[in-house]
């Protein structure tokens, strides 16, 4: 037995015990289950995870630097692509921060539209989370169901904003277009369908023994540990504290809407799943309240000509663009309007000097925008405090003593979107 050199190598001290080493393997950045380009350096002892180090930066896009070279309105197109699964929240944080610097407020109808689209985005984002988490943990048909429902929501987005993702719909001063005439009908159809579909997901997953086995007791993060690590969103609420920016520091009139903030106490992956399912139902409730408030017409953009986006956009057969009536107005009817349009588009608006931090509650947690202006027509500093960036810091402590299979479940329950993490 201890004859050949290979065997001898394994028994260094002659005691007869085999030498044991931990194995360092790399998971990602190209991996089907890491929710994007996340790289995990896992030190494994067999199937047990000894330590885990997340390495990010594989999607670093330089959005913050790019925003400093573009006008204020152009920045919206950049920040909307940071956390690409919740583009409306990115736009909302940026626009609210810029509006606070300007000292203006969007008209009430614009605020209702903002809440409406944000809550629908929350539903869409949670559906993607459910779809990909189900796929990774083996419930492969959840992928198809999640994306099927998401297509209904994206249909509404496309009819209203012209795009399925990365909309640039919220602008500084309001929103760029009102809902199309059939918008409320489509949204009511969504409200009619979704509760039944969410019920379907609960019937498939909630009492499923495999789902429970893979999620209950896995990746537990206690409330004080979560708060110390800066975790926010469903990950924190699943551990107990009912911290939600919509309730703590309301914006866009959230204090006038009726909704609950779901929490759980266990702080494990199953609790996060339960919290997100419940959040989808609460979002549907808010969407219903928004629809009732949209019955009266009103302006959707501030009136101040120095600030409002001059053009009227329209969703045409080939996408979104200036409405033909507006093009005729500036090209044929009014020279002043053409000059004004030109100046607003190329030079943009001037924002008074100052700094502002605006948090919003995105599907992943507290999304904060720290905007610094030096008085010019370009942002001086745009800092995006992304919730996934901070939530990923909690992953090593959640994986203490876990198995390799639990790594998948834990990462999925964190719901990281690498576009936001790396910006």
């Amino acid at each position: 037995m201890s004859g050949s050199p290979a065997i001898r190598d394994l028994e260094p001290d002659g005691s007869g015990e085999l030498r044991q080493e931990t194995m360092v393997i790399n998971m990602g950045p190209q991996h089907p289950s890491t929710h994007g380009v996340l790289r995990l350096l896992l030190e494994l002892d067999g199937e047990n995870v000894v330590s885990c180090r997340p390495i990010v930066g594989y999607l670093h896009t330089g959005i913050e630097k790019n925003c400093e070279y573009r006008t204020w309105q152009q920045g919206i197109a950049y920040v909307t692509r940071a956390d690409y699964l919740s583009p409306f929240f990115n736009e909302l944080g940026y626009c609210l921060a810029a509006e606070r610097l300007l000292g203006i407020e969007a008209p009430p109808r614009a605020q209702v539209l903002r809440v409406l689209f944000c809550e629908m985005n929350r539903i869409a984002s949670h559906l993607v989370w459910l779809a990909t988490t189900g796929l990774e943990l083996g419930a492969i048909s959840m992928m198809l169901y999640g994306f099927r429902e998401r297509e209904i929501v994206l249909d509404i987005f496309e009819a209203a904003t012209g795009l399925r993702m990365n909309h640039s719909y919220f602008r500084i001063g309001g929103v760029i277009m009102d809902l199309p005439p059939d918008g409320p009908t489509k949204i009511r159809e969504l409200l009619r369908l979704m509760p039944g579909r969410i019920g379907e997901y609960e019937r498939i997953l909630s009492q499923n023994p495999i789902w429970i086995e893979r999620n209950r007791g896995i990746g537990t993060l206690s409330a004080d540990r979560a708060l110390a690590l800066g975790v926010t969103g469903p990950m924190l609420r699943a551990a107990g504290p009912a911290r939600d920016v919509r309730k703590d520091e309301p914006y866009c009139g959230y204090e006038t809407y009726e909704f609950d903030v779901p929490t759980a106490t266990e702080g494990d992956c199953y609790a996060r799943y339960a919290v997100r399912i419940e959040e989808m139902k609460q979002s549907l409730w808010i969407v219903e309240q928004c629809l009732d408030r949209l019955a009266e017409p009103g302006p959707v953009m501030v009136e101040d000509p120095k600030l409002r986006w001059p053009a009227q956009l329209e969703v045409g057969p080939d996408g979104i663009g200036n409405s033909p009536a507006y093009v005729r107005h500036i090209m044929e009817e009014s020279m002043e309007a053409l000059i004004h349009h030109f100046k607003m588009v190329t030079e943009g608006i001037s924002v008074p000097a100052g700094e502002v931090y605006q948090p919003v509650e995105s599907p992943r947690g507290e999304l904060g925008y720290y905007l610094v202006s030096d008085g010019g027509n370009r942002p001086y500093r745009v800092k995006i405090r992304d919730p996934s960036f901070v939530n990923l810091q909690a992953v090593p402590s959640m994986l203490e003593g876990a198995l390799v299979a639990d790594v998948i479940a834990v990462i999925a329950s964190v719901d990281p979107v690498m576009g936001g993490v790396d910006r």
Partner: protein
Amino acid sequence: MPVERLPGLHEGRATSDVEQEVRRGVLLTTLDRAVSWARKQSMWPVTFGLACCAIEMMATGAGDYDLSRWGMELFRASPRQADLMIVAGRVSQKMAPVLRTVYDQMPEPKWVISMGVCASAGGMFTNYAIVQGVDSIVPVDVYVPGCPPKPEMLMYGILRLHEKVRTQGRVR
């Protein structure tokens, strides 16, 4: 059989050699077409979704815009088992070597679709962090513009790639 003598090609060769070559060409052309048809019928992409375009790629593979109609719903995680790489999303400087490594690990024949403007040309991110077009790293067969391209646009790009494979595929 009489064979048209092509100048420069058939000089100095016997008729029987040329006949043999033509017959061999016909056989291989038929084989080319058969193999190319088979290759395009079930091209398996490797999972290389990076950013927003990845979500649209997943939506293309999901129920509403079903990629399974063309045998492509199976996104292989391992590049060794894939023959198509859809670069979906912005490629950062840190990710570029990884992209090339995964491409190198794919066996021949392989094709690349560059999905979205960020992969095709850097997109709106003309800055220090993003590779301005993945064609400086891997050879691209089809560019699909859009930010992000709608699933129908990606499907059109995939079908154009299928046409390219079907008409230009070579066995030898």
